């Protein structure tokens, strides 16, 4: 069974339908967003340990096992000379203040971007956790996709399923894919270490594949 696990968002208005569902293609997509969201959070000791123990690849492999499209997980090797401090420093070097949509697109007013996103989340019964991440943080946006995909899997309503699918395509087009590819390109140009090189590549590939898949589902 699969359930969602949100870090940057919280449930404001509980949705109808079960909180756990049998694993399938759709929960696999949700699970991948869960892993990628966690991966791109600001690294702490746990993040570092997981990299060292190969847990990121393991979790992504497990999450992606039922994906309806191929996602090559590959290998992630943490170099032996990387310590927790340099691990965190690499994140700061690559992403500065964080992976943020507003910063990436050079928005004049980050509050404005966040307000728009908050409204988007609210329409789907979610609120941004006030004590955690920004609404435009990559992890929060991945959380949102994770939740939409989960609700798509959980709902018994055809209409609602279509609504969740349409919302995913729209969110990918208008948000994640409007800035993440640029962020990936910028970070890649800085010569990321093996860990982030792996993560950036997987993120970029997955988002594009997921959009193709969701679009095909809707158009089909």
């Amino acid at each position, binding site marked *: 069974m699969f359930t969602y696990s949100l870090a940057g968002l919280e449930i404001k*208005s509980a*949705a*109808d339908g079960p909180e756990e569902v049998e694993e399938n293609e759709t929960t696999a997509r949700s699970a991948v967003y869960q892993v990628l969201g966690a991966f791109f959070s600001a690294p702490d000791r746990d993040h570092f340990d997981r990299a060292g123990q190969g847990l990121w690849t393991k979790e992504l492999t497990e999450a992606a096992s039922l994906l309806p499209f191929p996602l090559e997980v590959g290998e992630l090797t943490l170099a032996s000379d990387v310590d927790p401090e340099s691990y965190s420093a690499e994140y700061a070097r690559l992403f500065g203040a964080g992976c943020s949509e507003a910063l990436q697109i050079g928005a004049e007013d980050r509050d404005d971007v966040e307000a*728009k996103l908050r*409204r*988007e989340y*609210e*329409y*789907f*019964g979610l609120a941004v956790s006030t004590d955690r991440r920004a609404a435009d943080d990559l992890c929060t946006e991945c959380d949102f996709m994770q939740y939409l995909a989960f609700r798509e899997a959980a709902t018994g*309503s055809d*209409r*609602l399923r279509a*609504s*969740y699918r*349409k*919302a995913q*395509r*729209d969110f990918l*087009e*208008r948000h994640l894919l409007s800035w993440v590819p640029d962020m990936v390109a910028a970070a890649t140009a800085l010569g990321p270490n093996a860990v982030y090189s792996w993560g950036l590549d997987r993120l970029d590939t997955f988002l594009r594949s997921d959009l193709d898949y969701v679009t095909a589902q809707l158009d089909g």
Partner: protein
Amino acid sequence: MSTEDRYQRRWCWDRVTWGTHCVNCLATCPYRVFTLGDTVAFEEQGGTIEAVAEGVPDLNPLGCQKGSAWSVQLTSEDRVLHPLRRVGERGGGQWEQITWEEALTEVADAMLDTIDEDGVESIVFEESVEGGLLSQAPFLRLAGLLGAITLDANGLVNDLPTGQHITFGKFSCASTVDDTFRSELLLQWHSNPAYTSIPYHHFISEARYRGATVVAIAPDYNASAVSSDMFVPVRPGTDAALALSMCEVVLSEGLADLEFASTQTDLPLLVRTDTGRFLRERDIRSGGAEDHFFLWDEGNGIHDAPRATLRLEGLKPALRGRWPVQLADGSTVEVTTVLSLLEERLADYVPERAEELCGVAASTIRTLARMVAGHRCKILEGFNTPKYYHGDLMERSMCLLLGLTGNWGRPGTGIQGLALAGLDGYFLFPMKTKKGVEETARLLEGIEQAVETMRARDPEATDEMLGNQLLALSASSGTSAPPVFFNYHHAGYRETWNRAEWSDPTMKRTFDAYLSDAVRRGWWGGVARPGAATEPRVLFSVGTNPLRRARGGRAKLLSNLWPKLDKVVVVDFRMSTTALHADLILPSAMQYERVNVQYPITHTLRLSFSDAATPPRGESRTEWQIFSALAKRLSERAVERDLLEYVDGRRQTRHLDRLGDDFVVGGDFASEEVVLDEWVRDSADAGTLPVGSSVETLRRDGSIRFTGLGIFAPGLSVAADVSPTDVMTAFGWHVDKGLPFPTLTRRAQFYIDHPWFVEADEHLPRHKEPPRMGGDWPLLITSGHSRWSVHSMSMGNRPLLGTHRGRPLVVMSEQDAVECAVREGDQVRVVNDHGAFEAMARVTPRVRPGQLIVYNGFEPHMFPRWEGANEVEPGMVKWLHLVGKYGHLRYLPFGWQPVPADRAVFVRLERVEAV
């Protein structure tokens, strides 16, 4: 500062937002609003709308001089900036400024007193079509939560093309305006688009350049006639005779598209010659249906008329003839076709006879008829016809002309009427008990389930018909009530409407008798409210202006309705004539000071957004703020007064202590921006707007093109596919897909066999002279909308006042001026048996002798003694429009109902001697 600097400063700005004006002009023009600090510097037309179809001009630039001068009104002298309470007599002009707290408490207490003493149906709101959806939704929401009465907006403003409704079962079925470009023949008939349709007028010129012929049919040589190829001067009120004569020519010269007429219209249906009624299934089959009709197949004789489709599927219906038919009881009757009866009628309208009636030369009638029959023809009709007493007959005749010539549902054809589009989110909103997509899905699934249940009972019904059924159901439990009953019982119209000399001579009984008959038969069950015994006590006018608008005049309302009212509450941004007679005025924010959207229309198929470019001036507030605060105050005062619940007029228990919370759904909808965002997202979810639409996309783009007509009745009545790359032509579903019309016979229906119509000899279209409304006087007022103001919205706009005489006018012919000893610029008094007013004479050769034009929109307070032009309008309603429960002739909100006439009022005129 140098002149140059001053000039440059005039055009400086530091912020640009989108704006539109949300007035009742059937346009949705996106403007760029340029703001410097907290002041709007100027606005200009957006011009950003993408072309839709290859080779068809785009909508740009959209706009008119009223929109381009809107910002001036933000600071005009008639702005209301603070809550005001009357001091002294009503209309005395003395006010005191009070706080919002005081104002809301006073209104709340008046409402609670009324609920407690007389019931909630003594609280009456005038529905509005002005101000945008976010001005209307808040008070409709409060009325809905209370179970109060809202007077149907279309019954008030009368933009109801009744003849279109009688024919098609609907009236809001306008193509997108760019379809005009595809016409070969444009008839500007009962419309003056050069004045009233400025944003769209370029399509007429462009069609003309493309080769179309443009014809103006009007009593006067109006501004639209100037740029037409042909001007057809018709005697006022005789357009039915002209149209029917053209029909006669089309049929007698063999020019009719009879295949089109056979499939689309009721012309092949069988009518019993003994009763004049359609031959129904119950006539010939025991237990047969009342709404099942027949035609005569040339191969096999009598045959059921298909109900699920307009396609004839192998049938060859005879259009002319008489045949014997055996009834269920074994007897035999003769039947004929509607076309046979129609041709008998049209014999009265051969061009030479019609020339005597309508004043158009027989040769011109023949020429016009041949032109219509040989071209893709569109009638550009305005809202003038509905305002004639017999406007329904004119429209039925125009529609007949189109039906005989294959002129609807095809590119460049049809008749322009009302043009409402659907915004599903707006319609869903009152039903939402929480925010978000889950609730939307729940509601939509509930609606779909209800529709499927109805479909199971009538598997041959179309989505459009089922949408109407759904609307009818909601009407019987909603707040909306046709104003005819309110006006009859409470506003002093009963005596007027019973004046036989002002009514049609074929009306056999008194108006009283017809009205009580209609009510007794249950034709208006559930909506004939408030009843005679429920006196109104609180009246809300939110952006409406009954003392200017009401046919019947300000004096009638002030002497009959006003004395019954404990509290007249006006919510407006300006000091209208109604505000001047109010007890309390609550100042509302104007467009550019608040978020809003114009009501969606099919003309442009666009939802246009107006942003808050500046803060509201003074203490003005948005309607959402006003009515949510009022709901909260009602709850608080109800608790203080221990008036926690009551039973409304439909025996539903209402809880006042929860009202404030219910209004904002526990805080989910705390502001109008959140409300609008929900409407837009819900509409996108339902497929009416592009996926991903939100307030933010509106804010970015200013205007969004619809992707669908929605699931509710108003949008569906256009019956056409919406394509992102094509023009939309109304009735495409009927012509291309064969989907039936939502009428009794499921065809465009020219024969109405209701006994009242038969009694009045209006079972088929015919011409009737306008009744002598106002008395037997030599001059006739035709009126019309002006170029300078949409209704009274811009009547206080100084730059616009400078573009005309800035005061009310009576436009008259040179001959009448000589006869009345009047000269250009004289003050004249217009008088009839109902009332009188004074205005300046404008003498011109473009008006025909006997005709007066008094352009709509001037406030009564712009006339001497505040006696406006509506003082001479009795506001008669046509008794036949009280018919109900006859197929499509039944009440739906904003739809079929009696509406007052104000065109073709008879008067005399005299010069006012200089004092």
